[in-house]
């Protein structure tokens, strides 16, 4: 009977090998996908009860986990919730995470490969896994100024402010209003969390939306910077002193009547040809609509895309792509030249335009995560600034800078003037396209013009301001000024 017994032995061996192979498959090869499974409460429980790393701005955290006496051991806490929530995002038990809490989850939860050594030490010392910290690029003073400026606008203001460091692409400030309180979403009272989540999602003002990166609106006159850049790059114009077409009205090609008629709302734009910088100072619609048509649809789109339109640049936060239409006919192109028709931009995008001009034509890729640190604050990785594109040549950039400085000194952007500092800026007031919706106020600027430290974009979508009073300069100018001052004065 020994031969069949040997066969049985081999059969048993096969059974056990199958079990081991299956266990290996399950616990090694398939474990990542099972751990990522949406219904896997175990992983989220664990994430909830390990000491998640902090998100730090300046020297103090804007998101941290503090020990509490309940089954999850740690509570996610946001010391300045409304001001920083567009960047930190939220961290919920049932609804996942948003913002940096989501994109930097691997670091914050300690699972990131870059934290492997720390994790190994934790394992050997039998202490619980501690997450790494994320140091953000935000400048606390700039963020404070942006938040105070934006929420200082009367009424339930809807809008956003984004400030960039032109030379590096660091996001210095990013606020969005209305904002939300992520502490309420991180609560361990899940009933309350559910209520708050439903309330936030049902709110027509979309408080969960980061208007700085996710909301695209017609950029209005601020887009004239792109049009001017395209005109200068086309070679037809060389400097801020060149003569460009002016005039009080401009009938768009292929149109007749009022719908195709562009005017300057009473600003002084000459009768035939005016200096380029005057057109910029007075934000002459007739000039820039003409210039867009002159340059042509392809050149306009290429210039817009060189600044970052039609794609996204920020990897750390959810971002909506700003758009420039790629099949505009001539009248639509004219409208696009003054930031109307189908042109849509996020405040981040317009900040990139200003920063690119300030930085001698080079747009740096914007980023929010400055450093990744281990739990004991050892620097694991520092983000290196990266060139996003060369949007315009150096000479073009310096001519555009001249025009923007002139716009502050003698033109519509005067509210952003800072004594003793040369500031470049451009206002914008974009038609929403609907009669019952107020126009959007835009403002982009940078300072100091000769050695830029900060570029700002302000966008006010709606506020309790008379329709006629809405103007990028009047509302956005002071906010941008405050943010620029906060950065420069250090």
């Amino acid at each position, binding site marked *: *009977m*020994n*031969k*069949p*017994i*040997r*066969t*049985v*032995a081999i*059969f*048993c*061996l096969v*059974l*056990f090998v*199958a*079990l*081991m192979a*299956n*266990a*290996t498959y*399950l*616990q*090694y090869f*398939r*474990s*990542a996908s*099972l*751990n990522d*499974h949406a*219904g*896997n*409460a*175990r*992983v989220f*429980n*664990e994430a909830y009860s390990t000491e998640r790393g902090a998100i730090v701005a300046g020297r103090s955290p804007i998101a941290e986990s503090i020990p509490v006496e309940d089954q999850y051991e740690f509570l996610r806490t946001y010391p300045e919730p409304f001001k920083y929530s567009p960047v930190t995002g939220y961290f919920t038990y049932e609804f996942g995470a948003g913002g940096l809490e989501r994109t930097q989850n691997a670091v914050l939860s300690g699972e990131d490969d870059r934290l492997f050594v720390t994790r190994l030490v934790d*394992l050997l010392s*039998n202490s*619980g896994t501690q997450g790494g910290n994320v140091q953000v690029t935000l400048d606390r003073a700039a963020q404070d100024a942006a938040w105070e400026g934006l929420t200082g606008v009367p009424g339930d203001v809807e809008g956003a402010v984004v400030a960039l460091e032109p030379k590096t692409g660091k996001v210095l400030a990013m606020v969005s209003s209305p904002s939300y309180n992520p502490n309420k979403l991180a609560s361990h009272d899940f009933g309350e969390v559910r209520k708050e989540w439903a309330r936030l999602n049902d709110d027509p003002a979309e408080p969960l939306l980061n208007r700085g990166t996710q909301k695209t609106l017609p950029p209005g006159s601020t887009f004239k910077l792109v049009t001017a850049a395209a005109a200068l790059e086309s070679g037809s114009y060389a400097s801020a002193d060149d003569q460009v077409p002016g005039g009080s009205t401009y009938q768009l090609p292929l149109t007749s009547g009022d719908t195709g008629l562009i005017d300057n709302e009473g600003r002084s734009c000459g009768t035939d040809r005016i200096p380029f910088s005057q057109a910029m100072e007075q934000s002459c619609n007739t000039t820039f609509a003409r210039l867009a048509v002159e340059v042509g649809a392809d050149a306009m789109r290429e210039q817009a895309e060189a600044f970052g339109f039609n794609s996204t640049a920020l990897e750390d936060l959810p971002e909506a792509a700003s758009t420039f239409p790629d099949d505009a006919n001539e009248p639509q192109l004219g409208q696009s030249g003054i930031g109307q028709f189908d042109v849509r931009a996020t405040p981040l995008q317009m900040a990139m335009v200003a920063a690119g001009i300030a930085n001698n034509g080079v747009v740096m890729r914007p980023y929010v995560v400055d450093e990744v640190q281990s739990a004991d604050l050892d620097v694991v990785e520092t983000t290196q600034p990266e060139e996003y594109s060369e949007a315009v040549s150096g000479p073009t950039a310096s001519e555009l800078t001249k025009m923007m400085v002139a716009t502050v000194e003698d033109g519509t952007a005067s509210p952003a003037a800072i004594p003793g500092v040369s500031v470049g800026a451009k206002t914008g007031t974009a038609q929403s396209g609907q009669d019952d919706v107020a126009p959007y106020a835009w403002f982009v600027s940078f300072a100091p013009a000769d050695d830029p430290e900060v570029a700002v974009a302000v966008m006010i979508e709606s506020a309790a301001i008379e329709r006629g009073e809405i103007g990028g300069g009047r509302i956005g100018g002071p906010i941008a000024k405050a943010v620029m001052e906060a950065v420069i004065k250090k």
Partner: protein
Amino acid sequence: MAPSGSLMGFVHRQRRGAELFLLILALAVGIGAYAAVGIGVEGHVPADIVGYGGWLAALVVAAHVAVRIVAPYADPVLLPVVAALNGLGLAVIHRLDLASGDHTFARQQLTWMTLGVILFVLTLVVVRDHRLLQRFTYTSGLGALALLLLPLVPGVGKTINGARIWIGIGPFSFQPGEVAKVLLVVTFAGYLVLHRDALALAGRRVLFVDLPRGRDLGPVLAMWVVSLGVLVFQRDLGSSLLFFGLFLIMLYVATERPGWLVVGGLLFTAGAAAGYQLFGHVRQRFDIWLDPFDYYRQASGPHSDQLVESLFGMAWGGLLGRGFGEGSPWRISYAESDFIIGAIGEELGLTGVIAVLLLYGLIVERALRAALISRDGFGKLLATGLAAVFALQVFVVVGGVTGLIPLTGLTTPFLSYGGSSLVANWVIVALMLRVSDQARRPLPDLSTTDDEDPDVESTQVVRLP
């Protein structure tokens, strides 16, 4: 190769010292795991570690002393492996007790282990020669049937979790199927060894398969069919599968005809297909196996929460595991019984699971080794049967928990919480040790070389020094 030939003149050593050394290692596993659970869950070594460890050590030493006295030539590896598994199981159950807060399963399990060791010693003492059991071929067959039928008796039987495989005696519940398993092995071994020639040689050939005569196979086939019927009626899929496989393997070993495996395989396929068609619960298990996530956290109907939580747990454990107290094995319902492998996979990782599987593999391998060197057909069949029961049970339950095969619900030998299973498995190990003791024991000097035994391989003559 003729092992008995090569064993001519070879005298096995007793190796009791080796067993003792391995037992100390096994105790280190059991007591160490208990201490690790205390540290992991409560932050300190459990206060009762001395009492607990002492009790565990006393049980293990008692078993060792019994083996030393009544089975001195028994295999030295089996007992330590079993002690390690039982100790680890206790620690894991204790860990789950701590998580639930109000269970005292570990304490009860220790009581059951004590009873198991007592029965282990009794078995070794009473069954001084496994061939004694051959006398009880039919008695144990009847006993097995009676035990299997018991749960169906009104008033005695209890339905727990949909399977009517329990009997209640006062405060105790007992799964008679676990004991019936051992009795069935004895019955099959006894019957088959007696009729193996007739089964192998007499009969007609039908479609390439030599079928034995009805009167040779009939009785054992009949009782096997009855057992299966009872189990199917009780909705105990795991045990049905176990009995089927056991019968097939023993028939194959007895007759040495691979054809039985073919026939059995076909019958199994047909049975599985019929079961799928006829029984809703079989179909459910099968559907859940194919796509467990479809049935996860369903508000109504069949749900796969237990399996999916086990899969999540094992994946979460990864290679090295979360460590005792660092996972959430309580998320798996019945983690302490059917799904204890899931709990081990989560907290001890793939490393722990593979270690446990290797220990099980060692038990099977050692039992089969005893079968190979056993000198009598009954011993060979008995040891093979016990090994097969073990291997199949581990395969069915671990395979089910890890999603390799549809889940059927069996206990994990020595690890799972459950008195009937633990006690029965201790008896099984006692029988394995008994066969190996007989097989390794040097024969008295017969000084003759007559070779009348038809089973040449099991005959050996050893000259004592």
